[in-house]
């Protein structure tokens, strides 16, 4: 019996004009999302590479490692970033690394090209979150009330047909029919990726598939939700309006309001305050530094070269002291800020998870490596690089960068022992340590996404059960 209903449901859906129109629209949009994603990925990759080359080229003329006081490192585009942008367009993607001290970042994509920020990008996550959920509602809102209006509900129940079989068949049929046809479109879309020259590793393929499964689960939530609403109402027009209002709430209102509420209830010190505290300490430390410089005393012989190296290491040690003090303040401030920030984020997410759209965003952005953790990771990687760069510079020049004073040893004179005119050799940038910008490991991406995937599954079950129970009490007349 269940089979008959499922079969009928699938046929009825797939044969309807409604399905033809939505499916065509879906197909176009999904293909568009993949195409645009691939194109953007290539563009971002090209830009990233251009920035890197330009950055290296800018060091070419330098003949002395001392000249190199800072290095810019760039956040490479994540492989799935163009399909699920997350915060990747909002966070700063350039870090300015010196041997010590804070690492300022700049150049978020939207700050750089605000024109894209006006409407934001089309990505697969957006298509799932907004468009496909709307279509799910459109395909599900008259599931029960529509049959009632057509009279087929009475006709079907003139047979010895248990209600639970009917509603289960209806839900399963709608779910199978729609997700399978969506999967076909998405599979076509995925084909675009290799055609456009996007190479994904095995793990990335799995992540992409998980993203799609999450999207389908989310689609299922809205489908079962609209069937649930349909089994609570007797007129399909009402059912549609209610579903639509719920949709607007879930997609746009609940997440935004949750973040605002979390922001009100957990105070996080602004970046300005932190910058100010650091800057004040910085000025104070600079004075201490000047003071310290006056206590330099030469030990041993007064050979100028020896003197220079003594001075160098003296300055370096002063800088280290200064950096240590700054670091202790800055880590204290940052820790406090990031703790509060974490509390705020957790509160915001938990509030926002009332809406399945939040779970979709969180899960897919974790899977694609474009969640809020991307920012922290970039900061960590920059710090790691700073260490490597600092050690490198110390080895090359005997002095780390990012200090107060840059000593430059004159080659022609000053040192006293003029060497013969040697053409200065340009530095070999190949020797520089390479930033380790590994993307997230499989576990790092998948584990945090599991909660939200589970939430989506639970939502599916809840609305499924809701539709089920509501239908058992449905007035069939």
């Amino acid at each position, binding site marked *: 019996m269940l089979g*008959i209903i499922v079969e*009928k449901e699938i*046929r*009825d859906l797939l044969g309807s004009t409604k399905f033809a129109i939505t499916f065509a629209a879906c197909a176009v949009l999904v293909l568009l999302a993949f195409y645009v994603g691939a194109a953007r990925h290539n563009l971002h990759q090209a830009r990233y590479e251009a920035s890197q080359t330009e950055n290296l080229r800018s060091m070419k003329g330098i003949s002395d490692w001392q000249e190199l006081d800072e290095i810019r490192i760039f956040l490479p585009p994540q492989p799935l970033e163009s399909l699920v942008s997350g915060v990747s367009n909002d966070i700063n993607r350039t870090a300015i690394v010196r041997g010590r001290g804070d690492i300022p970042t700049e150049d978020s994509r939207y700050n750089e090209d605000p024109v894209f920020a006006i409407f934001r990008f089309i990505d697969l996550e957006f298509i799932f979150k907004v468009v496909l959920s709307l279509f799910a509602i459109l395909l599900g809102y008259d599931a029960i009330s529509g049959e009632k209006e057509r*009279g087929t509900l*009475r*006709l079907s*129940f*003139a047979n*010895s047909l248990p209600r639970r079989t009917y509603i289960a068949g209806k839900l399963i049929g709608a779910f199978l029919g729609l997700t399978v046809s969506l999967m076909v479109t998405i599979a076509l879309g995925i084909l675009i990726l290799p055609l456009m020259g996007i190479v994904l590793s095995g793990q990335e393929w799995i992540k992409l598939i998980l993203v799609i499964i999450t999207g389908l689960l989310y689609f299922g939530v809205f489908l079962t939700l609209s069937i649930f609403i349909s089994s609570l109402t007797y007129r399909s027009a009402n059912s549609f309006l209610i579903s639509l209002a719920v949709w607007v709430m879930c997609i746009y209102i609940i997440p935004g309001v949750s973040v605002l509420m979390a922001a009100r209830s957990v105070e996080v010190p602004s970046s300005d305050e932190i910058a100010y505290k650091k800057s004040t300490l910085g000025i104070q430390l600079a004075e201490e530094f000047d003071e310290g410089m006056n206590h330099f005393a030469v030990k041993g012989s007064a050979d100028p070269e020896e003197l220079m190296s003594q001075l160098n290491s003296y300055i370096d040690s002063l800088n280290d002291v200064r950096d240590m003090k700054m670091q202790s303040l800055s880590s204290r401030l940052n820790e406090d800020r990031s703790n509060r920030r974490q509390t705020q984020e957790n509160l915001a997410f938990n509030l926002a998870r009332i809406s399945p759209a939040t779970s979709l965003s969180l899960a897919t952005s974790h899977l694609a490596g474009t969640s809020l953790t991307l920012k922290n990771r970039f900061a960590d990687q920059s710090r790691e690089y700073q260490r490597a760069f600092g050690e490198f510079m110390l080895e090359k020049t005997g002095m780390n960068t990012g200090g107060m004073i840059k000593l430059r040893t004159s080659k022609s004179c000053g040192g006293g022992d003029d060497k013969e005119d040697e053409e200065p050799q340009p530095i070999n940038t190949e020797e520089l340590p390479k930033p380790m910008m590994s993307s997230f490991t499989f576990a790092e991406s998948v584990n945090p996404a599991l909660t939200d995937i589970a939430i989506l599954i639970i939502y599916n079950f809840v609305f499924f059960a809701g539709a089920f129970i509501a239908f058992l009490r449905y007035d069939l007349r």
Partner: protein
Amino acid sequence: MTKDLIDNTLPALEATNLTKKYEDGVLALDKVSFSVNRGEIFVMLGGNGAGKTTAINIFLNFIEPTSGEAKINGIVSHREPLRAKQHIAFVSENVMLYPNFTALQNLDFFARLGGKQDLTRDELQAVLLRVGLQEEVHHKRLKGFSKGMRQKCGIAIAIVKDASAILLDEPTSGLDPKAGRDFVELLKTLRDENKAILMSTHDIFRAREIADTVAIMDRGKIIMQQAAGELAGKDLENLYMQYMAGSNNHTTNTTGGVNAGHNS
């Protein structure tokens, strides 16, 4: 699903003291009793809100009776609805069906719901032909069907189930004369196949034409019930008007109205 063995000695449809009071206090059925035997066409005649559809809905277990019971082959409909419904087929007033399905697909689906899982396409087409749907429309979607054609599909669905009782809720309303005529003929052949047929209508002429028994209903009561034989030679329309007028005058005592009608 296996069909129950039917006890042929029981009436196919039987209502005993069927009462339905809705939540809003309306008394839709008030201790209505009647029975329909195999090979009998029982027509409920009455205006809108007389309780005809409520009675059918109780047989179909779409609503539960407040008291009394509706039995199908002796099975109480609201106690064992799934068993009871194996033995009835239903044709509603305005059969919409699935507009995106062809006539054949609609029939196939409902046949299988009715427990006829393994009918061949030829068998299904034979039923469609029998109700007067020509071969060329069998593969057309229901969207483009006229009301009469849809009604034929509806009766085909009822026939294909091969149930012992058929319930029809205002099946002829809005049909053109030819379609109405065909419909009546079809019902007659079904009666000849020993089906019990319960039909509600407000079409007096149609009722007179096919009924073996006519029951006039008003405000939840059967105010008159006569066999076709008793009705022979009487003007049913006149009778109906008289009973209705009587029932209106004696709202508190409808049985009096019946008697009054009889006497006149």
